[in-house]
Structure formats: C-alpha cells, structure tokens
C-alpha cells in the first residue's frame, strides 16, 4: 500500500532525489515509514541516511529479516533506523530473491552494533552480509548442520531425528561446538590441556565427526 505523499516521511522524497531508481517503493504502515531499496545500493543508502545533515539517522535499532509464507515472495532484510535528535524512525527494506544469492553488504562499518545483529540474521535466515568481519553463527552453535531455523522450509523440530541431534550435541569434545571467543578462553589459552589447545588452534570446531 502506498500512502499519500503527505503522510510519508520527508526522508523518502529526499532519498528519491538522491538515489533515483534505487529507491523502489515506500509505504506507511501503522504510522511507520517503510522504504524499499535496491539490495546492491543498500549500504550507500544507509550511509547517506546516517551522514546527511537533516537526515541524521544515527541509531541502528535492529537488523532483521522476514520470510513470507508465500513461497514466491522474496526474503526481506530489514534495517530499523532512528534519528535520536528528532525521535524519528525509518525502516529500510531490501528484497532478496530466493533463487539468487542471499547477499547484502554489511553495515558494520557504519554501526559497530550491527555485528551481532547481522550474525543473528545469518544464523537464522542464511543471509550473508558481505564484508562482515566475523560472520559466524550467533545463537546456534558453530557445528550446527541443520540449516537456518527461521526459514519457512525448516521443520519446527529440525531436520535431524532427536537421536541424531543428541548425538551431535554429546559426541566428541565439547569445545568442537564453540569458538575460542565463545568459550571466552582466548586469553587463557596457555592454561588449557595440550590436546584442547591443539584442537582450538587448528580450528577444529564447526564440524561433526
């Protein structure tokens, strides 16, 4: 639904002037301004929204993604922005066709706080944020092999049987599921047993025997 121009955020008109066809459509839903942009230009748009005087969307509230039940609809990545000084919100969306690569540029260079938000979207939806410094799973463990849990084709109980899930959780050394950072032992490396130290140094996590 396209709202009357009067109701739309003034940022939308400014975005159209600055980016032209890269701004696809916009809407106002429940009072929130939503603007759809070209996935390839999304980093430019976000940087422009953050740095342009008069826009100054300086706070990244959340990065998330939506997959609709309609299989033909694209997967959407959503950035919720807020201009703290004006207390004004803007929601930026980029549609990723499911038959293409699920990739958007990272915005961790604009907001450091996007790091874990993008990791969560990667973990749950499989969207790759190109240029992300450390794109690992966030909520699921590193060796999780069943896919992306919030995708619509993911069964609620997971792909594997409960026995297989339990086997993957219990089998092998516990640290295979976790990275050094996750175990918070990066600085305690020297105190670890030699075999564990070797496994961690060789990066033997993220795989299941």
């Amino acid at each position, binding site marked *: 639904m396209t709202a009357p121009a009067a109701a739309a955020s003034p940022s939308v008109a400014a975005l159209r002037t600055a980016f032209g066809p890269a701004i696809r459509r916009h809407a106002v839903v429940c009072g929130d301004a939503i603007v759809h942009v070209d996935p390839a230009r999304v980093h430019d748009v976000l940087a422009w929204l953050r740095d342009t005087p008069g826009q100054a969307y300086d706070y990244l509230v959340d990065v998330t993604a939506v997959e609709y039940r309609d299989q033909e609809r694209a997967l959407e990545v959503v950035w919720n922005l807020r201009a703290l000084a004006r207390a004004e919100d803007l929601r930026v969306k980029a549609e990723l066709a499911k038959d293409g690569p699920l990739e958007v540029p990272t915005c961790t260079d604009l907001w450091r706080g996007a790091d874990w938000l993008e990791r969560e979207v990667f973990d749950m939806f499989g969207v790759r944020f190109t240029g992300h410094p450390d794109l690992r799973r966030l909520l699921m463990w590193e060796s999780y092999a069943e896919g992306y849990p919030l995708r619509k084709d*993911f*069964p609620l109980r997971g*792909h594997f049987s*409960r026995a*297989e899930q*339990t086997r993957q*959780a219990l*089998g092998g050394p*516990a640290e295979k599921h976790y990275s050094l950072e996750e175990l918070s032992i990066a600085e305690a490396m020297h105190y670890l047993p030699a075999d564990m130290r070797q496994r961690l140094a060789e990066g033997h996590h993220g795989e299941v025997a």
Partner: protein
Amino acid sequence: MGLIEPTGIPGDPAVISHTSPNWVTTRLDFLMNWARKNSLWPMPFGTACCAIEFMATAASRYDLSRFGMERQSFSPRQADVLICAGRLPFKLAPVIRRIWDQMPQPKWAISMGACASSGGIFDNYAMVQGIDTIIPVDVYVPGCPPRPEGLMYGILLLQKKIQGESVSDEALRVERVVRPDGLFLPAERVDELSEPFGNSVHQTRSA
C-alpha cells in the same frame, strides 16, 4: 547367631560375600544413607524461570537448609545433587554433561520442571526433550514452574530414595558415561522419549 559360618570350602554357599546385605551392612547402609541424605550439597543448574523458584526455595522463607542443603555448591566437584532448573537447549547439553561428569560419586540429579523433564512447551529444533537423554535423572519434579513446595517434595523423595540405597547394590555407583557412538541412551530410546505428546505439534520430520 549362625548368619556367617565359614566352612573353609571355597564356593560354599554358607560363605556370605562381602557385599551381601547381611545385618552388618544393613546398619552401615542406614548410617551412611542417613548422613548422605541430610547433607546434600546441590549444584544448581538454573537456565530459566524454574531457577527463580529454586532461588525462592533456597531463600529464607522456604529455607533449603532445613533439609541439609546448607551450602549451594557452585563447583560440580564439591556437589552431590545436580538440580537442572529450566529448559536445556542442545547448545547447553554438552555443558551439563560435562558438569555431571565432573561431579564425584555418590551423585544424584533432580530434573526440575516440565521443560527439564520433557522439553515442556518447547518441542522445537533447539531444545533437549528431557534431560534424561543427556544424564541419568533420579527425581522429576513436575510444574511450570514448580512451586517451592513442589521442589521440596522432590528433594524429600530423593532423600527417601537415598535412605533406601544399599552398598551391596553393585549397579548403584556405576558411572554411566556417554557411549562411543556419542549417545548416553540408545538412539531408539532417545527418539521414543522425544516423541511429541499432549499439545505439542505433530509434524513429520523430513529426516
């Protein structure tokens, strides 16, 4: 009294083995079990709202100390009873298994609440469907979460169980470790225990 009459012949049934429940070990059992059941040191493994009820149980109003649980043991190496209070995701399964392995014998486990006992409402991809697929459990406390009275009743049941133990039971202190195939229970048993039930969703798995 004629209970033990050594005949000197090896294998003679009159020779009572050193672990048989004759009257000496029965009184020893009673003393040991009485001491053990009244000095349980709990290792709280609180992951969710059950832990709040556990804290209430341990605090002054309900006062776990009355049952000999004077000291909460936050190190598994000085603990007797593991209380899993809350849901257990697969991500934490290796952690609770390692804590259980670190606890010295004799040790017991209480599964507190619906989620720890069965997965509860979380019949999903991330959640262990009952911690008895990960570690052996002695007492299950139902409830979502159980009130402190419920947990205390579970603790009293565990004390009753401990009072009934016998040193002549050779299966009692056997460490039940994860088997070479990476499972604690046989795979069919895990699947059987994890079947959907009650209001949980019935959906076919794709694998």
